C-alpha cells in the first residue's frame, strides 16, 4: 500500500501553503497552483504531508492510500 497526493483542482485557490510545507513533493506553477510529484509519499514525509493537508485553507489537498 502506498500513499499519494491528490489535489481537488476545483477547491484549490492557489494559496501555495502546501508547497512551502512539502517542497519535496509539491511545486507551484507559474500561476501559483500546486504541481504534485507523482511519486508516493514516503513514511519519512508523511508527517509533513499530513501537515500540508491540514493547513490547506480550502482543504483541497488529499492523501490517497491505494
Amino acid at each position, binding site marked *: 500500500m502506498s500513499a499519494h497526493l491528490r489535489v*481537488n*483542482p*476545483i*477547491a*484549490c*485557490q*492557489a494559496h501555495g501553503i502546501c508547497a512551502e510545507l512539502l517542497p519535496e513533493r509539491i511545486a507551484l*506553477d*507559474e*500561476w*501559483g*497552483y500546486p*504541481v504534485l510529484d507523482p511519486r508516493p509519499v514516503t513514511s519519512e514525509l508523511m508527517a509533513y504531508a499530513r501537515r500540508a493537508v491540514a493547513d490547506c485553507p480550502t482543504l483541497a489537498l488529499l492523501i490517497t492510500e491505494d
Partner: protein
Amino acid sequence: MAGGPGPARPMPLAEHLERHGGFLLQGFGGEGAPTMLIDAVERAGLTGHGGAGFPTARKMRAVAGRRRPVVVVNAAEGEPASHKDALLMRIRPHLVLDGAVLAADAVGAREVIVALHGGPSSAHAAVAERAAAGLDPVSIQVVQVPKEYVASEESALVRFLSGAPALPTFTPPRPYERGVNGRSTLVQNAETLAHLALIARHGDQWFRSVGTPEAPGSLLVTVGGAVQQPGVYELAFGTPLKTAFEAAGGFTEPVQAVLVGGYFGAWLPAETALGLPLTPADLKAAGAAIGAGVLLALPASACGLGESQRVATWLANQSAGQCGPCTLGLPAIAEDLAVLSRGGKTTNVRHRLDRRLSLVEGRGACHHPDGTARFVASALQTFAQDLARHQRGNPCPPTRHPVLPLPDDAGGS
C-alpha cells in the same frame, strides 16, 4: 446503422418496429442472477461512442442492482465539429430510446433521462409516441442541456440533472456511485445505446460480423472540411480513413492534414492519416484517437496554425473556470499559439508553450485542459514546417473562410 441506410427523416414508431422488430426485456434479476444483455454487450465488445471509448458492459455492471439507478442518454453533443448524435436523435430516435430502455431494464432502472440540446424535436415526439403506445415499463424524460462544451461532460451532466449548474465535478464519486440526485447513474452516449439496441435484437455475433476482432462493429463518423459531401457516415471499424473521405464524395482540393477525433483530438499529416485503419489501436499508435468520431480534412490552402489557434482560443473560453491550471493555463496557451502563428522571432514563446502544454495536463477536474493541450501539441507537430516558415517571416496567406467549425456566437481572433 442497422442493416443498411434508411430514410434520412424521423422514423415513426410503427415503421421503426416493422423495420427492426420488437425487443425482449429480461430485467435485472438481482445479485447473482443472469445478466443476459450485459453479457451479450460484453461479448460484442461494445465501447462508448461519446469520446472516452470505455467498455459499455463494465459501466452497466457498475450500476446494475444498485438502489434505484437512473439511465442517462447523453445526446448533448458539445463538440462543434460533431453532428452524429444530433442526427441520430433526429432520424432514429426510437433506436436510441430502445437502447436506453433495454439498458435501464438490464441494470434495474425505472427511469431514463434523455439529455440533449435544443427545444422540441423528433426526440420529444418519439418519447410522446412511446408513452401513448404504452411501450416501455420505464419513464422517459427529455431534458435540455446548456450549449457549453463542458456541459455534456459526464459529471457536469449529472450535476445539471440534479438541479445544479452544468459544471464538471471532482471525482470520485463517479456517477455510478453517486449520480443524478445521489442515485447510481449509467450515462451512455446516444450512439452507444443505438448499438446496444441492435445487439439486444441481433446478438453479439451479428455485431462482430463487421469491424475487426479487436475493434468490432461500426461507428458514426462526422466527416467535414474539404470534402464534397460533408456529413455523418456509418463505417465499420478498421475502414481506412481514406475510405471515410471517399464516402463523403472525396476531396474538393488537395489536403494537407486531417483532424482526427475533434477538438480534443489530434492533427495528423494527410499522408499518415489516409492509410490508417479506423481502430482505436491504429490511431493511438499514430498519436490520435477516434474521440467522438470526427474526421476533418484541412485543405493545403488553409493555415493549420491559424485554424488551430482559432479553435484553441475558443476552447480556452469554454473552460468552466473552476480549476486554476485550466482557467489560466488555456488562455495562456492559446495566446502563445497566436503569437507563434503570427510569426517573427519567437523561440522563447515556443519554449514557454511547450512547458505550459505539459503543465496543464491532468490538472483539471475534467479532461478539458488535457484535450486542449493534446490538440495544440499535435498542431505544433503536424504544422512544424509552417511554424518554421512563419518564424522566418513568411506567414500563410489569409483564407476567406475558416475550415474548422465553431458555434456561431464564438470566433476567436
